[in-house]
């Protein structure tokens, strides 16, 4: 039997906009994810596992291993 000192991952695999993404960190705030993946538009929709995360919560909401994340740019026109 193997024993681990910690069961925390040093990486995470998530689904971002229906694609697999691998990050060499244990978790990432929404704000960090948007910067890393260069989502630069002012108006965005962020969903984690189907639940909306609003702008003020980007800094203190963390994405974890296995999460399904959707980021949508909102553009004027209709």
């Amino acid at each position, binding site marked *: 039997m193997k024993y681990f000192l910690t069961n925390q991952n040093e990486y995470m695999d998530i689904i971002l906009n229906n694609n697999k993404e691998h990050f060499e960190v244990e978790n990432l705030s929404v704000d960090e994810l948007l910067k890393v993946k260069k989502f630069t538009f002012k108006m965005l929709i962020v969903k984690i596992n*189907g639940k909306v995360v609003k702008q003020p919560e980007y800094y203190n909401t963390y994405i974890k291993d296995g999460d399904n994340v959707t980021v949508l740019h909102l553009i004027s026109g*209709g």
Partner: protein
Amino acid sequence: MNFEQIISVLSKKSVGIAGCGGLGSNCAVALARVGIGKLVICDFDIVVESNLNRQYFFYSQIDMKKSFALKENIKNINPFIVVEAHDIKLEHNNIPSFFQHCDVIVEAFDRADMKQMIIETVLDEMPETPLVCGIGLAGWGNSNAIKMKQTGNLYVCGDGDSEVTEDSPPLAPRVGIVANMQANTVIEILLNESK
């Protein structure tokens, strides 16, 4: 499914249309033609001449409230459809009450902040109701960039990145493609549910 069977499913369904501009007016007309039972259409604006390059209104309807003008046009195409027209500005507080009995909601606003508002409202407060959005439709050509993408109950039609600017205005053909793609997605959802 033959046309009779399709009609018999769709005639029992109700669809909410949030905004009666380029997306909403064309999407509503397509849904009326296939015989959706009821349309709840909402807009606070009036028809102006510059709308006629893409919106389903007529010259004689300039200065009319968009919601009432669209109801008139729908009734002229298919008088058997129940149309509930509201001259109202949709907001976070009133969206659930206007659309509470709708099987699907169509987002048809022009401003990005309004799109954000309705998506957050519906996902938060009406998560069981599918929402079909139109995002990215400016300019001309590039038809193959326009796609439908689904995540959960959120369906997004459009190219996802063409913003309306002075040099890339919204024009009838491309707006029409997205509006009809929204209508097509709506009936796909409703007909799949009935299987």
